[in-house]
């Protein structure tokens, strides 16, 4: 019986592509800072932590936590803007929970917002857990 083992770089690339097709105009997983004239809404993907459970010596069940930090322009209706931003990012993350067949589940476990402090932007931080199998 063949199993699919996940590749982290592929998963991040898939997530990046899914967020873009969901409506995020700029996605970066290498740089984590807004500068220049990036287009909104934009999102940064941050690698966080891994929890590993050994099923066999060469089959490890990994729960990989990443943070997606998304920004939009708040405009005159910051609350509506942040809700719209959340909706776009959610649909992007949930578009393919296998991330190109690498993972067996992807779920958003928490969403935090800037609570108005990032004005004139609005910001939402998504804590996402990707479950996949690793050989090492």
């Amino acid at each position: 019986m063949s199993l699919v083992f996940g590749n982290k770089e592929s998963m991040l690339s898939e997530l990046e592509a899914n967020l873009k097709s969901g409506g995020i105009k700029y996605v970066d997983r290498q740089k984590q800072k807004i500068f220049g004239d990036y287009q909104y809404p934009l999102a940064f993907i941050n690698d966080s932590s891994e929890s590993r459970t050994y099923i066999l010596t060469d089959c490890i069940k990994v729960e990989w936590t990443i943070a997606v930090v998304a920004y939009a322009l708040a405009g005159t209706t910051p609350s509506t803007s942040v809700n719209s931003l959340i909706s776009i990012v959610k649909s992007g993350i949930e578009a393919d929970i296998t991330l190109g067949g690498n993972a067996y589940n992807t779920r958003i476990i928490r969403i935090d917002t800037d609570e108005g402090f990032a004005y004139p932007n609005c910001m939402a931080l998504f804590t996402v857990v990707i479950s996949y199998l690793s050989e090492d």
Partner: protein
Amino acid sequence: MTDSTRTSILSAISGVIEQVSSVNTVVCSNGNVMIETYKASDLPLVQIVFNRETPLYETSHHAMWEISFELTCYVLGGIEDTVENIIKDIKDAIGANQTMNQTCVITEIVSVNIIGDFPLWKLIFDMRSKYEKGVADA
């Protein structure tokens, strides 16, 4: 049936299961194997553990015993056709070799349970069999 001992029965059962092409490893143990010490290529792995043993009758020279045992097959992957196929393969092997090389008679497959969590599943066959032995060996 010939006069049998627990060891000869165990060896005969494992011999039959080893012939199942979809099973890669057979382990006879007195308890659960530490499955996390095995590799993916060792699976499907079958573990055979004897449970309760009860005398059915005894004469001056001979005794018949009922012995129950658990045959656990560890399978890696999605719970799909492959799992069902392994159950079928094991059932077929037992059905075709019910006397297990004359050491015992498999009288009943009491139950087959699938437990576990993705990606590791345990297919547990609860089995009963009878065997004979000279009283002197009891």
